[in-house]
């Protein structure tokens, strides 16, 4: 017993020494950015996008801005676990002494971290989290992704432009699905269209035969879908195609069939459309440079996606914030204030931070899966310019 205690005491003393040593903080010449990422678990695809987007940005623009070196520190949340996200954010701020937070694949993570961001006045940039309530969590939140209704409503506008009259909505049965469903329905109806059916399917559904049968027996010319990419999206699109609905309807979703997931589909996906704030095929200088560097760093088969594009544009926003504080003592709130109203050309085209709402004003692209030279790829067939996020009141009523 005594032996054990003595050993434990010695062990504790040694660990204390080892842990206590590296307390040398480079206070002013370095800005640390903590990225809440997903390196493991179901959202690892997004986490990989975060890493790549940021690394490509650093490869192109160097590792310092405004006279300060910028260092990124990553933490893996590893699944849907906002409590862990909050703890990791606390550790990033307390232990790593980060000046800015970034990442946030899920809205629940941003909502959980909100109070700390507010309390410590740490600017935080959400790359993907697109729930309408995210920015309300703290005045120091900014976005490099989207408001979910921007893409959803744009999908409805595109459908009406193509003359769609009767639309059926299929969404996954969870909060983002409800938000997407509501935004689509409101926009479609206010533009004079009619919603002929709506169905919410459990999150992990892969067999959509019964649901598609229900749609087929309804008179429709448009189908709006919102399901997670992967097995559910593949299952739904295949079922729709088998019933001949992809040809006879304007089928519009969001990120279900990005270029990098197209190899998982067969030809039945041809004709599927997605309304999103980023498109791989965008023909602008930033996007071309981005994709070239991405392929150089990670191999010629690497495809960009909305996660890496958001991380890239988010990294730009971070660099701009650091630049704004050049020659001054670092102040998070001042940095946020400085980039409100900022507009720039991202890989997604022109984008602007609305100084009032802090939401992004950006283009939404209508992409269509086409088969070119025996290969599936998304082409841009239409776009809406400078789309603003709807107000809170619009979303609630």
């Amino acid at each position, binding site marked *: 017993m005594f032996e054990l205690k003595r050993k434990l005491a010695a062990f504790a003393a040694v660990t204390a020494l080892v842990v206590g040593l590296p307390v040398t903080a480079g206070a002013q010449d370095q800005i640390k950015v903590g990225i809440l990422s997903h390196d493991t678990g179901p959202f690892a695809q997004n986490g990989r996008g975060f890493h790549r987007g940021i690394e490509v940005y650093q490869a192109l623009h160097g590792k310092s801005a405004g006279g300060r070196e910028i260092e990124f520190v990553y933490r893996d949340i590893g699944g849907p676990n906002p409590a862990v996200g*909050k*703890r990791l954010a606390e*550790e990033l701020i*307390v232990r790593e002494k980060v000046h800015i937070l970034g990442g946030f694949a899920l809205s629940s993570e941003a*909502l*959980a971290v909100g109070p700390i961001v507010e309390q*410590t006045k740490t600017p935080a940039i959400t790359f993907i989290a697109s729930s309408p*309530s995210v920015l309300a969590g703290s005045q120091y939140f900014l976005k490099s992704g989207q408001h979910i209704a921007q893409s959803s409503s744009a999908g409805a506008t595109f459908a009406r432009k193509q003359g769609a009259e009767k639309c059926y909505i299929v969404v996954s049965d969870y*909060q983002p699905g409800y938000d997407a469903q509501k935004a689509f329905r409101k926009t479609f109806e206010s533009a004079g269209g009619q919603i002929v059916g709506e169905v919410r399917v459990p999150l992990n559904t892969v067999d959509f035969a019964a649901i598609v049968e229900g749609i087929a027996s309804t008179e429709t010319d448009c189908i709006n879908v919102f399901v997670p990419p992967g097995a559910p999206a593949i299952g739904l699109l295949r079922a729709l195609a088998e019933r001949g609905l992809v040809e006879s309807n304007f089928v519009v979703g969001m990120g279900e069939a990005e270029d990098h997931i197209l190899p998982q589909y067969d030809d039945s996906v041809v004709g599927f459309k997605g309304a999103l704030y980023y498109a791989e095929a965008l023909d602008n200088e930033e996007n071309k440079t981005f994709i070239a560097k991405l392929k150089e760093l990670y191999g010629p088969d690497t495809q960009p996606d909305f996660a890496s594009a958001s991380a890239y544009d988010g990294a730009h926003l971070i660099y701009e914030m650091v630049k704004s504080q050049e020659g001054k003592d670092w102040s998070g709130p001042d940095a946020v204030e400085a980039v409100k109203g900022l507009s720039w050309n991202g890989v997604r085209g022109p984008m602007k931070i609305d100084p009032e709402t802090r939401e992004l004003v950006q283009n939404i692209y209508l992409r269509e899966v086409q088969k070119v030279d025996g290969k599936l790829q998304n082409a841009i067939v239409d776009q809406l310019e400078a789309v603003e996020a709807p107000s809170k009141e619009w979303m609630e009523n």
Partner: protein
Amino acid sequence: MKITVSSTGLSALDRPRMPMIALVVFALALAVFFVFPDRLSLAAYIGIFALFALSLDLALGMAGIVTLGHAAFFGVGAYTAGWLALAGWQEPITGVVISGLCAAALAGALGPFILRLTGLPLVMVTLAVGVFLFEAANKLTWLTGGDDGLYGMTFSPVLGIFEWSIYGTTDYLYVLAWLALAFYGCHRLTTSNFGLALRGVRENRLRMSLLGSSVLAQLTLAYALSAFIAGVAGALLAQTSEFVGLEVLSVEKSIDVLVILVLGGVGHLYGALLGAPVYLLIKDMSKEWNPHAWMIIIGFMLVFVMLVARGGIHGVLHKVIERSRGKLPNGEPR
């Protein structure tokens, strides 16, 4: 047939006072407060899971209730604490007690029905209850916030003195106090007549009922007590993170806590205290080093525990200590 009450540390029966080792463990936990002042949020998180594992140990280790749905009570506790705070009841300690009582009430209502089952059917039904609650919480977004979670809650300082902060000082001591209290309670329970009766039920249900023991009532009471502690752990998670995410009700949580308990040692109160730090520290350290490694490490540890060290970490430590004292372990299960 000779009844041998095994693996629960019968020696504790002879000594109803808290054994020395408990004091050492809690002294070490308190030392963490001074040695790692910048890691207290992780420490508090570990404490919460130790508490959750302790509650499972009460059900599984003591009473032999094999369950894969214990997160149901953890989640009910967490949501109750969240709802109370959002409704204006921000006093944390009473909040925890009320949350624990709600979880216990649910267990008390379910117990008489599901505890008639044993073995695989019991596992399936507890799993089903867990999945049902998870889906219900996902659907009832007006109540739970669904996938976005429940947010915007604040809690008043503990005892009106200790403010919450991002350094986790209050969080950790607060969690540790609850853990110590629950551990003491469980210790008293296992050394009581009731605890002995539970062990009897675990070893041979039929014989206990033939002895005139009201098996179902005892199991239900144990289940409710276990749920109370799980609810307390859930409420503590809600209070320390000021947020309740849907994942508190997930099947993964139920499995996580089972793995923690198996690693630490089922049926020993210390199993929960040892398993939680080992599991969560490996998970956390591997995240900074190589995030993909931790599943492999945990996998190997589980295989090791299953093959050669059935008593988990506690079992191994116990043997080592007994050996060093020159005593051979007696009555240890193989």
